């Protein structure tokens, strides 16, 4: 019996063309969006039932006027100095040693006229209706940055790595759940050391 010839090959030459066509379509429609931004929580609309009295010294007021100028603690301040001032305020630890409010990890000046400890320290942000959004974001960024600086410092001290890095890994959905559980505890701990208390609503004050 004579050997049969191989079956005729299907011409696949145009496959590349078809694939290219699809490729170009997806190339054109693709927008690799990397949405990132500043996460914030708005205060609930119902006011809390018990009217908490907050000492004036535990509030760090930041006012932005319509020209983008800053009034920090009744003092005209350059935007570049804001982070420094916020860190100094949060990290102050003004409560005396031995009192329940004493902050053992604060490295600030322990000035009794500034915030007692980071748990009590509140940053109050007010802005004019004509403030530019860009300025507002810069201020928000600096305040979040102040918190992140302090949290990073504590995370470095306790766990030897940056808080922001730990948080990013914790929030990343691709991180295995075992590592995430481990990270959750650490992230929570650091957040408790420096809770983000950034108020944009009216705060009742007494002296």
């Amino acid at each position: 019996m004579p050997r049969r010839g191989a079956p005729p090959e299907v011409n696949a030459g145009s496959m590349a063309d078809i694939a290219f066509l699809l490729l170009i379509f997806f190339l054109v429609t693709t927008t690799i969006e990397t949405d990132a931004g500043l996460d914030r929580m708005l205060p609930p609309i119902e006011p809390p039932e018990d009217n908490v009295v907050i000492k004036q010294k535990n509030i760090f007021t930041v006012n932005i006027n319509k020209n983008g100028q800053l009034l920090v603690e009744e003092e005209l301040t350059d935007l570049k100095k804001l982070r420094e001032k916020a860190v100094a305020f949060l990290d102050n630890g003004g409560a005396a040693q031995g009192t329940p409010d004493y902050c053992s990890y604060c490295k600030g000046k322990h000035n009794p006229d500034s915030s007692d400890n980071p748990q009590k320290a509140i940053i109050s942000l007010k802005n004019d209706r004509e403030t530019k959004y860009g300025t507002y974001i810069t201020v928000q960024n600096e305040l979040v940055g102040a918190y992140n600086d302090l949290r990073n410092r504590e995370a470095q001290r306790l766990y030897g790595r940056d808080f922001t890095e730990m948080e990013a890994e914790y929030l990343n959905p691709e991180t295995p759940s075992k590592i995430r559980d481990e990270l959750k505890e650490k992230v929570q701990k650091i957040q408790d050391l420096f809770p983000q208390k950034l108020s944009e609503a009216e705060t009742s004050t007494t002296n």
Partner: protein
Amino acid sequence: MAKFNKKKSGDLPAVSTASLPDIVFMLLFFFMTVTTMKDSTLLVENTLPNASEVKKLEKKDRVIYIYVGKPTREYQKVFGTEPKIQLNDKYASVAEVGDYVLEERAKKPQELQNVLTTALKVDKDANMGLISDIKQELRKVNALKVNYTTYEGDAFRNLQ
């Protein structure tokens, strides 16, 4: 020496293009997986501000977008140059924001309804008055988690 002679005498072999489709398909699949179809055309100018302390918005299905900015050039004759809110494909007033968020929330699966984030994509030249109004509306419908969407960069460039 015969070896070399032999080679010289042969024709230049054609480069095989048989693996070309494979390569192209690989690229194709890459782009297919990363593609997100743009679902709304922008009617407002949207130059986001810069910020350095950003967090990524990981899951797209948990985000509701609100755009704010000046109308783009072709709409400026009709709508003026005051910043406006864009929801889906049309301009909206502040009072409509709450309804829009509730509507979008109802469209999402039950288990996601409590973890939604509202992404505010605001042009950096918009005024805070409008943003405050939007935030007030969001508080009314209890959509408290917001994300001020920004570009990653030096925050002080916003001031120029």
